[in-house]
């Protein structure tokens, strides 16, 4: 089983992938919950447009998203230049950019899962909480959010798995720099481009499958457990 031992470069790619994906989920979860809430509970004229915008990364070629990020968030991009000047934050060609690319690509999956769970929350329970003296914010935190937990877990884990697999937008936006932006899929791609890379590619391929499968199983298990708890079956 010697061929299963990973090289330091592959290990670095794995670590970077986990790091980038964790950050992508952590950073986009609050935004995702807010967006899901807006889509599920509010009505305003431009709503189909927002809905479409949220779902764009799901249907656009990832390279388009990567290019858009480059144009908007690059060092001389519309938003990137402002970020650099006023906050000193540069996301082009470093791990933060990889986080951004992964977060944007995983966003529709997260919002869908969270929104579904939000739509399953009975507004009657929220109304009951209001009559018990809780203001809207307290109702959201103590009633709505806990009841959404299964969807939030599912959304977070799906987004995490999607982030681990993110390729096109990442390579377009932040390139393929070992130790900086070379995540697991990018390392795998690099290995397929060199003659002696086959064993490494096979290892990373296997690793990707294992991680993705584990994420799906954990997500399913957790959300079942929470649903059971809500039904009082513990």
């Amino acid at each position, binding site marked *: 089983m010697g061929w299963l031992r990973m090289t330091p470069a592959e290990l670095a790619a794995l670590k970077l992938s986990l790091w980038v994906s964790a950050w992508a989920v952590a950073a986009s979860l609050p935004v995702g919950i807010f967006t899901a809430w807006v889509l599920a509970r509010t009505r305003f004229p431009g709503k189909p447009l927002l809905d479409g915008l949220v779902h764009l990364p799901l249907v656009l070629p990832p390279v388009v998203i990567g290019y858009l990020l480059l144009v908007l968030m690059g060092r001389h991009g519309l938003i990137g230049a402002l970020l650099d000047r006023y906050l000193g934050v540069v996301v082009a060609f470093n791990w933060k950019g990889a986080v951004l690319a992964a977060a944007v690509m995983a966003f529709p999956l997260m919002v869908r899962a969270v929104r579904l769970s939000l739509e399953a929350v*009975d507004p*009657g*329970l929220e*109304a*009951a*909480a*209001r*009559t*018990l*003296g*809780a*203001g809207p914010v*307290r109702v959201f935190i*103590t*009633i709505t959010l*806990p*009841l959404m937990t299964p969807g939030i877990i599912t959304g977070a884990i799906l987004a995490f798995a999607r982030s681990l697999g993110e390729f096109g937008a990442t390579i377009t936006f932040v390139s393929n720099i070992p130790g900086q932006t070379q995540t697991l899929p990018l390392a795998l791609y690099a290995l397929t481009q060199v003659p002696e890379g086959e064993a490494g590619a096979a290892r990373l391929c296997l690793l990707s499958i294992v991680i993705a499968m584990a994420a799906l199983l954990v997500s399913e298990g957790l959300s079942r457990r929470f649903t059971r*708890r*809500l*039904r*009082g*079956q*513990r």
Partner: protein
Amino acid sequence: MITVQVEKKLDAFMIQAGFQAPAKGVTALFGPSGAGKTSIINMVAGLLRPDGGLIQVNGRPLFDSQNGIDLPPEQRRVGYVFQDGRLFPHLSVRANLAYGMRLVPKERRYVELERVVALLGIAHLLERRPATLSGGEKQRVAIGRALLTSPSLLLMDEPLASLDALRKAEVLPFIRRLADAFSLPILYVSHDWEEIEALAANWVVVEAGRVVTPMGSV
């Protein structure tokens, strides 16, 4: 004295209802299903906004379109027992009961947990989850939860409608005891004349969004 004078255009019809209820005891809103009874008490609770009118509880305006008053539900001090209970499924019975109570300043509380638990006979349920309760138990907990906010008015929307005859007989005495134990006005919505006879001192008949008999006594 409770004063309700509301107008609201709904999809099916127009609600134009006005009545007064005494500051003590059970006043029933009686009428066929779909007459607008629930809409009327939803307006009292602040869950439905009237197009115009006046809602007052013991001189305190909750809604007054002329003076631009429209308190949000959480500031109305109006307890609400829903037809379907609406217990919070992720909280224990104890946490459900305490949910509203904890939000009331201590000096305004006139109802204590122990007293409500004893009155409603739910001491053995406190650590359970709502999903494991029977229909009658759920409604008793829902009544307790609303009562523990120390409301100045209690609304009950067909609290027995989802229960079978046996369960009804189980909960009914608790509601009757409630009106006596806490001298608190209760607006009780029902389409069941027997319930009203068993509970209410006064009644108002609602039909197609209008009060057709302003006030009678059983």
